């Protein structure tokens, strides 16, 4: 389940390990998952020994899948149910399908944490987007979300969107990070912020968002090492857009439905090892299993998940 990098690698590896009948379900109309919107370079240095963009990395796997007869790819297919007995229900245009699998690999990826989860006070105007959603809008739909932006969180998605928006002519007024360091790669701080003269405010947070219909400005305040606001340190930043890049949550609702044990803090499967879940015959790989920072490792570990599923089927 899931036709991003994890699902594609798992399906191909399971096939290579001799699994006869594989169904790959993807809810979008294309394979590739999040890679399709990650148009920046930085992928594949380990797996392909060259630097690719996200779509290029995905394209290599899509081509392999096209040549592979033993894998049926079903696009626009949204899984709505998984039982402990591995019965699967999914919608595809015009039909509700039901299949039973002898093994299931969950490669459902992540969704984004939102403004609500970090509790920024203030009004609720238009112009506040999760950074990954903004990335999809800019890179795939051709919409620019605003003219003057502030970014919350200095993870890789936030940094990459800072550069992307700057290149598109948006005035990026700063990246606000509550921690002392960036969670993102150093190279992204350099090539996404320093290259474009975008300030990075460590140990700062947005204390309020202002605006009636549309964002008008944000209040930014410095915090101490206990993350408490430092009085008198506040300043205002006029802007019409706020991008929120504050982490990812693995999507494991299907596993939960199948009775699998979930770690509530991280929303990841509780299991004895990587790619495993507490439900026999149900595996989880890629960002659904744990949040990775490099797709190359997703490919490596997900291929292992494919082989683990193949081994499970042989033993049965």
């Amino acid at each position: 389940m899931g036709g991003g990098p994890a699902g594609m690698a798992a399906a191909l590896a399971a096939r290579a390990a001799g699994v006869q009948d594989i169904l790959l379900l993807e809810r979008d109309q294309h394979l590739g998952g999040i890679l399709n919107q990650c148009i920046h370079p930085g992928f594949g240095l380990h797996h392909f020994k060259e630097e690719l963009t996200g779509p290029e990395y995905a394209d290599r796997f899509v081509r392999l899948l096209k040549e592979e007869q033993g894998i049926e790819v079903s696009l626009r297919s949204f899984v709505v149910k998984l039982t402990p007995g591995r019965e699967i229900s999914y919608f595809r245009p015009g039909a509700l399908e039901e299949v039973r699998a002898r093994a299931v690999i969950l490669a459902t990826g992540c969704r984004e944490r939102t403004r609500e989860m970090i509790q920024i006070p203030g009004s609720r105007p238009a112009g506040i987007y999760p950074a990954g959603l903004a990335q999809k809008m800019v890179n795939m739909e051709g919409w620019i979300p605003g003219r003057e932006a502030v970014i919350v969180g200095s993870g890789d998605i936030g940094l990459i969107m800072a550069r992307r928006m700057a290149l598109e002519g948006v005035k990026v007024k700063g990246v606000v990070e509550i921690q002392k360091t960036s969670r993102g790669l150093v190279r992204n701080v350099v090539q996404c912020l320093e290259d474009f003269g975008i300030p990075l405010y460590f140990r700062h947070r947005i204390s309020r968002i202002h605006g009636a219909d549309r964002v008008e400005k944000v209040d930014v305040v410095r915090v101490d090492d206990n993350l408490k606001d430092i009085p008198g340190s506040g300043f205002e930043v006029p802007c019409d857009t706020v991008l929120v890049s504050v982490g990812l949550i693995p999507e494991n609702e299907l596993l939960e439905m199948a009775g699998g044990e979930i770690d509530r803090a991280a929303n990841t499967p509780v299991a004895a090892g990587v790619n495993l879940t507490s439900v026999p015959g149900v595996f989880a790989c890629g960002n659904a299993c744990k949040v990775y920072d490099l797709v190359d490792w997703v490919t490596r570990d997900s291929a292992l998940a494919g082989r683990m599923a193949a081994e499970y089927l042989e033993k049965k």
Partner: protein
Amino acid sequence: MKRVMTCIECPQGCRLEIEADGRRVLSVAGQKCKRGDKYARQEIEAPMRTLTTSVLTGGLELKMLPVRTSKPIPKEKLFETMAAVKRIVVSSPVKAGAVVATDFLGLGVDLVACRSIDKK
């Protein structure tokens, strides 16, 4: 003059210490591989970046086609290049790696498609 910079050639992000005399590099230290040395010299002499962006399409299955420059271009040309990219519309199907515009802006680099795209 001593300068410290981060190598951006790969996600390792090595911290490079560079001894330079104006734009002439005397020594580079801290790199975990050869590319770091090359990067430091290039970065001091004339910084280069690969540009990736998306261009509009017409009559194709996706609204935008992701593209990249075939080679890095001078950093100070990024915005000029973006402005020129915005004038391009791709209206026939291409394969990943196909050239969308040749010798772009006379920089000696091509604009290359990053994925295959079909008709609607």
